[in-house]
Each structure stands twice: as structure tokens, then as C-alpha cells.
């Protein structure tokens, strides 16, 4: 184990692969009150990283910052090798990110599953007067199949079960063909069977596609399947190397060394 108390991007020096996410001393929160305290985090291209933390630890807040939905109060943020400072940078980075939100509320108006998946491609291949084309429909079809909901394509999203809606949301995030996939509690509200099934799919998709994935949750993760599992506790991100493939025993809670 390395003696440093927190992961810094420097801890990745000498490791192959460029960092896709590079946060340094990032604080963030709401109404001037910080929820995340000087978080430093680096994620390499192709990694599958989990972040575990209790309710209210700041997991969703961290994802909102990475998505550009929340502006950091301090610190620096680099995504895909570019410093993110203004709205232009955020728009640039949002094209490259797929996002699976914590809660999939059924919408107030009808939408078919295929159409909701298609919307994940907004800003990639269509926007405004640029309409989706045959290629987009093909991408949608592929990802409906990949997530195992091809037979639900024509169904109204509102008529789906929670687990099916979650898969539709995953298909939508993947249909963006993102370089980075951010997932907020993708399996938390599912029953055991659906949870295992979805986690299996996520792991398979990761190993097949090589998309960089960051998953946050408050439940235990199958640590051995992840490249790294980090711990977020009251807005402080714990060291990165505690749980990785060479140290599978330390997936439980514990203080810094």
C-alpha cells in the first residue's frame, strides 16, 4: 500500500493510459455550502471505477460536477484532457458523457422505449433541425438488444417496471456512444435478481466495449470485478488503492492508514 492519505492525479504517474477524469482539490455543494471537500480523483481511459458511500455522502453531487450540472466552488477539473472552465467546455464534454441518473421517474407524457433511447443521442448526431437518421435508429436497436429490452421497444416507458426502466435508461446512456459512462446507483432500487442481472450486463458491456465507467452506490460492490473501488465519506474521497485487483480483501469500511 502507498503511504499517501488521498489519491492525487500524481499517483497515476507511470501508469499507462491517459486520465479521462482529473479532479484536483475540487469542492462543491449547494447555496455556497460545500458538500464535497477538496476531492482529488483521476480515472484512466478504460477503467471501471466504483465509489461507495453512505446516503448523503455526496456521491450524486460528485457526478453532477463531472456532468457539468454543478460548477465546482474550488479546485480544477480536467476532462478528456481539457480544462473545464466555461459553458463551452461543458458542452464539449457533455457530448462525450453518458449518464444514468439515480432515479428514473416515469414521465408525465407518453414516450416509447425506443424513442427515449434515441434521445440519448441528442447533441451527438442530431439537435434542432438536424433530425435523427437511419444510423441513429440502428444504434438504438443495437443497444436495446445489448440491454435485453429489444422486445419492449414499442412499449410506453410509463408502463415499464422499475427494473425495465432502469435498463432503458442504461440503453439510453449507452446509445450516446460515450467515452465515459457515469452511473448513479444503477442497481440500488432493484430486487436481488434484477440487481445481479443489471450488474452483470454492466460488467460485460465494460469488458466488451472498453468504455470508461464510474459507478457510485451506497451498497457493496463486487470489488473483484472493478479496477478500483473508492470510498466517499462525508465529502472526503478515500484512497484509491485500498481495493483493487491486487488487494481484494479490503473492500470493507475502514479509516485511512
Amino acid at each position: 500500500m502507498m503511504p499517501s492519505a488521498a489519491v492525487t492525479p500524481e499517483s497515476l504517474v507511470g501508469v499507462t493510459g491517459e486520465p479521462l477524469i482529473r479532479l484536483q482539490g475540487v469542492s462543491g455543494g449547494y447555496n455556497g455550502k460545500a458538500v464535497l471537500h477538496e476531492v482529488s480523483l483521476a480515472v484512466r481511459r478504460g477503467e471501471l471505477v466504483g465509489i461507495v458511500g453512505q446516503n448523503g455522502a455526496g456521491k450524486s453531487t460528485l457526478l453532477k460536477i463531472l456532468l457539468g450540472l454543478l460548477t465546482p466552488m474550488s479546485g480544477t477539473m480536467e476532462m478528456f484532457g481539457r480544462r473545464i472552465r466555461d459553458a463551452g467546455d461543458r458542452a464539449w464534454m457533455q457530448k462525450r458523457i453518458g449518464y444514468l441518473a439515480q432515479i428514473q421517474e416515469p414521465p408525465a407524457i407518453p414516450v416509447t422505449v425506443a424513442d427515449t433511447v434515441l434521445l440519448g443521442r441528442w447533441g451527438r448526431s442530431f439537435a434542432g433541425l438536424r433530425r435523427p437518421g437511419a444510423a441513429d435508429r440502428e444504434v438504438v436497436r443495437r443497444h436495446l438488444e445489448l440491454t435485453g429490452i429489444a422486445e419492449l421497444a414499442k412499449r410506453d416507458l410509463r408502463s415499464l417496471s422499475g427494473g425495465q426502466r432502469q435498463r432503458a435508461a442504461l440503453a439510453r446512456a449507452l446509445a450516446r456512444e460515450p467515452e465515459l459512462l457515469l452511473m448513479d446507483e444503477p442497481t440500488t432500487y432493484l430486487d436481488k435478481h434484477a440487481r445481479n442481472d443489471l450488474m452483470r450486463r454492466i460488467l460485460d458491456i465494460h469488458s466488451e466495449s472498453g468504455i470508461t465507467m464510474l459507478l457510485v452506490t451506497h451498497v457493496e460492490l463486487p470489488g473483484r470485478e472493478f479496477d478500483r473501488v473508492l470510498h466517499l465519506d462525508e465529502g472526503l474521497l478515500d484512497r484509491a488503492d485500498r481495493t483493487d485487483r491486487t488487494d481484494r480483501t479490503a473492500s470493507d469500511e475502514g479509516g485511512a492508514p
Partner: protein
Amino acid sequence: MSEIAAALSIPVIRHALIGMLVAGSTLSLLGVVIVSLHLTAIRFTLIHVGLLGAAAGLSLGFSSTAGAFTLVLLASVLMGISGRRMSISASSVTGLFMTGSLAGAFLLLSRTGVPAMEVFGVFAGNILLMTRVDLVLVAVLGVVVVAAFVLAFREIQLVLLDSELARSLGVPVDLVTSFLFVLLGAGVAAALRLVGALLVDAIILLPGIAALRFARGLASALVLSAFFGVLACGGGFFAALYFDLPIGASAAAVSTIILALSSAVSAIQKRG
């Protein structure tokens, strides 16, 4: 039938028909927005603000339409800006606006001694007093509403379905929402002019609700809304001519019947 043809040769009546058809086919699209963004309380507030504006217009001696448009547009811009926060306390804000606006309207009207017939016109509409300018305004608004849905269909769809998702994809959610609010304000003010404050929903809301009972997506919801809107406004207009009824009330009656029938039909469909 020849009576109707004769009636249509009168310019005022022709204007009224065109106004109703344009409003029915375009302003009715806003009902889908009201339902999906949960703006029923907000549209209620806008109607009452419109009443106050109309009363102010009458009291100050210029047109009730100008007064209603000004105040409603102002209110919808303000609501669009304060956006999210509005919906949290929507019911209390609505109560405040509603009672306050009505009180203000009645006080203004009684103080300045506006003739009762004109006051009635504000509540029940007075479509036969439509001027050519009014008609052009309604038509322009109709074109803007339809153009907005055509030009930014996917953006509006995303905002209506899931604004957080839309934001994460990079959709300018605040811009789209503010614009929809302004359209809604203008639509309410225009409907107020056509059918009066009490019957605004007949054009703005009911066709949309009926459409959403059958639609499978946003596009079909919009097309169906327009269809029901035209049916209500056109059907109401001719029924009014034929049976010698007030046009606004007649259109509202047809609109109500459409909603009742579509609710019944969709209930039967769901069971079968």
C-alpha cells in the same frame, strides 16, 4: 345552411371563424406543455393575471386585450425566470395571485365605473369584436407556437420528459423552459381575448388532456391536440351560428364533450 353561408359573408363573423380555427389548431398544443410540466396551477395564475390586466385596460380607457397581454406576458416571463422555485410553492403562489388579481380587477372596475357589458366580455369573451389586428396577432402567435415545436422538437421533448437528463445532455433547458412559459402566457392572453377568462381552458388545456389519453408520443399528442382543438373551436363556432349561441360558450361545450368522450373511450380501451 344558407343562413350560415350568409352569416359567413359578414366580415366580423369570418374573422371570428378564422380566429377560432387558428387558435384551436395552434394554442391547443400548449395543453401538452401544461400537462407535462405540471403547470396547471401556473396557467390558472396567468388567467387571473390576465383578468386583472383586462380590467386595468378597461379602467384606464384603452383596450382590455392590450392590458391582458402586457400583464400576462410580464407574469410569464417572471415565472419563467424564477422557474423551479415557482413550482415548489405553486399552490400558495397561485392562491395569492388568484384572489389578489380578482380583487384588484373588481375594485378597479367598480371604481372606474366600466359598463357591465364590457366586464362580462372579459369573462366570457367577445369574439365578434375581433379586429383585423387582433386576428393578425393570433395568427402570428399560432405560427410561432407551431414553429417552436417544429424547430426544437427534440429539445422540447427532452425538457418535457426529463429536464435533468436534458440538462446533462447539454440542452439549454432554462432557455427552452422560459420560452415555453412566454408562449403559454401569450396563448392564455389570446384565448382570453377569444373566449374569455372563464373558458380559456377550452382552447388551451382540454384538447391537450384529451389528446394525451390516446397519444403514443409527443408528436402524436401534438397532432391530436390540434385536431381536437379545431374540432372544438370549429364545431363550437358552427353550432353557435346554427343554434344562435355565444361562440365561446359553444366551443367550450364542444371541448368538454370531446374530453368526456375521449376519457370514456380510453377507459374502455384500457379495460378491453
